[in-house]
């Protein structure tokens, strides 16, 4: 059984924000109204953290793309009262929008603030509704959503691989962010496959995980010489 994981090389990442945009388009993530954005209700499945370190003028800036970490021991699924968020055998932490009752307990429990909530019914101009990604279901008001590692792409990849009767190749299943990263800083693949790039990078001495001491075992691994 593969275990899907992401490696983000912070030394290569420039913080350009392309992953954020690619993600929003691929996953039909709603764009909230400006007033809502002002109230901190924007929805980014892939967000960007900016850290400033040091004293002027020796300032170091680190920009860290932050998707859902797809923890192996996810604090969010433990608290869900209705099985609306789950971890599958391949390590993907998913969200069932139609079952979610909107209690937002998972959001409160997530140490990484990776989840977002549909405070209102998502709205698009009529024209924009034509160009929605048909592979991803639209969410409704009052449910929690988050990065799925573009799990719908895995479905396509699996179908292709099954049709050709072969295993999934390394790099065949890529989420939108990894695919379009201009710095090639996002890697994605199977952590169980010792030949995969992700496996090798995850063993790098530069590898670290956010808040590793919490024991959540995130499957998004960062590389940086700075820490």
């Amino acid at each position, binding site marked *: 059984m593969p275990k899907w994981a992401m490696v983000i090389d912070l030394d290569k990442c420039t913080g350009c924000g392309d992953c954020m945009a690619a993600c929003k388009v691929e996953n039909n993530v709603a764009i909230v109204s400006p007033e809502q954005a002002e109230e*901190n209700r924007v929805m980014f499945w892939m967000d960007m953290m900016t*850290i400033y370190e040091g004293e002027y003028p020796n300032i170091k800036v680190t920009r860290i793309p932050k998707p859902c970490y797809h923890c192996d021991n996810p604090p969010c699924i433990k608290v869900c009262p209705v099985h609306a968020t789950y971890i599958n055998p391949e390590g993907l932490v998913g969200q069932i929008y139609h079952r979610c009752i909107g209690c937002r307990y998972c959001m*409160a429990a997530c140490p990484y603030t990776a989840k977002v909530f549909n405070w209102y019914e998502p709205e698009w101009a009529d024209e924009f509704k034509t160009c929605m990604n048909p592979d991803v279901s639209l969410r409704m008001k009052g449910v929690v959503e988050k990065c799925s590692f573009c799990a719908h792409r895995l479905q396509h990849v699996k179908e292709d691989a099954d049709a050709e009767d072969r295993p999934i190749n390394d790099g065949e299943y890529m989420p939108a962010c990894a695919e379009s990263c201009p710095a090639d800083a996002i890697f994605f693949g199977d952590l169980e496959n010792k030949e995969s790039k992700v496996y090798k990078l995850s063993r790098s001495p530069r590898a670290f995980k956010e808040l590793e001491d919490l024991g959540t075992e995130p499957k998004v691994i960062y590389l940086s010489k700075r820490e």
Partner: protein
Amino acid sequence: MEEKKKTTVDIDEALYRPIYETGKGFYITVGVLLMIILFAAFMYIRQVYYGLGVTGMNQPVTWGFYIVNFVFFIGISHAGTLISAILRLSKAEWRRPITRMAEVITAIVLAIGGLHPIIDLGRPDRVLNIFTAGRLQSPLLWDVTSITAYFTASTVYLYLPMIPDIAKLRDRGGKLRWFYDFLSWGWQGTEHQKKVLNRAINILMVMVIPIAVSVHTVISYIFSMTLQPGWHSTIFGPYFVVGAIFSGIAALLIVMIAFRKFFHLENYLKLIHFRYLSTLLLIMSLLWFYFTFSEYLTGIFGAEPHEMDVILYKMTGPYAIFFWGMVICNFIIPVIVLSFKKFKTIKGILFASITVVIGMWLERLNIVIPSLANPRLELSTGMYFPSLTEWSLFIGALAVFVLGYVLFSKFFPIISIWEIEEGREESIKEVEERVKSYLPGPAGTTE
């Protein structure tokens, strides 16, 4: 005591009076309350229609007033059953006029509090998913279970001691006779019935205390089971229970003072009752401070960075006014007012109780919001301002509480008449016997 002996049964008429005499005041009160509740209901329907966006919640402050009020109301509910059970159990004779009042608070407030998580849902239409696809592993469902258990237990515990009084009302006849007949369960006041009732009450009394304690511990689990700084703490269980009893006593005192004033119950609720209860309040205030102190001491001593972020945010951040307000309301004011006999008047106690209730509400706010507003990762901190919807639902909830109380007192005596009678008839002798039995003497003369 001399006084009491002289009083005759028709003095207890004062307790029946509110049921049979309906004044203008009653209609006005109910009308005003209904207006408030209707407005709140309108705001809630609006919220269901538009989505939770009408509240002030956001990312990362995903929980706001509703959860604060949920914890707060459930805390208040401890007034009743727990206090009355403890007092009954310890055979404190002065309990007799106050147990019912206390139990009613529990039943009403618990229902209100229990509704809050549903108000908080983004998809209330899917609430049944809890039954069809629930996860008992979620602390939220522990709450559902324990609150249901506590609600059931406390309703039974309110109802059983009411049966003799209901029978009295049935016997007085009137339009609602069938209603009281139904509820009185055929009570005739026979010895056997008394025995059965007493036995049942005794069992319940023992049962209800651990349930009550567990309920609030379980509420605290909602927070402490997560890994969030400021929440992930083992002290939260007892801390919440202490806070709950603390706010419960304060709420009970407020209710008692209100009834004393409006129903002219000075004869039943005497200064001594308030003195005793306020002493308990003082003790709880000190205990509360001790727990708060321990809670923050462990955080500050350990100085884990994220924990410290939250603590500093509470003490110096935008919510500092609420933090220090909480300390003043919950500790400084009650300790000053209740430590000096000079201030320990009815007015003084009322003042202290009100500050404690406000302070405990602030405490819940201080637990829920600052932790959420300070995400562990380097994201911007959040701010939370409740919207009109949240305020109106809060005020609506308070109105439901008052209305519930008003209606209850319209149909049932607010003071347990038969227990007062029992006290008059039997307790003096019984207490004398009992006290004698405590006193040192030859072993084996008493049980």
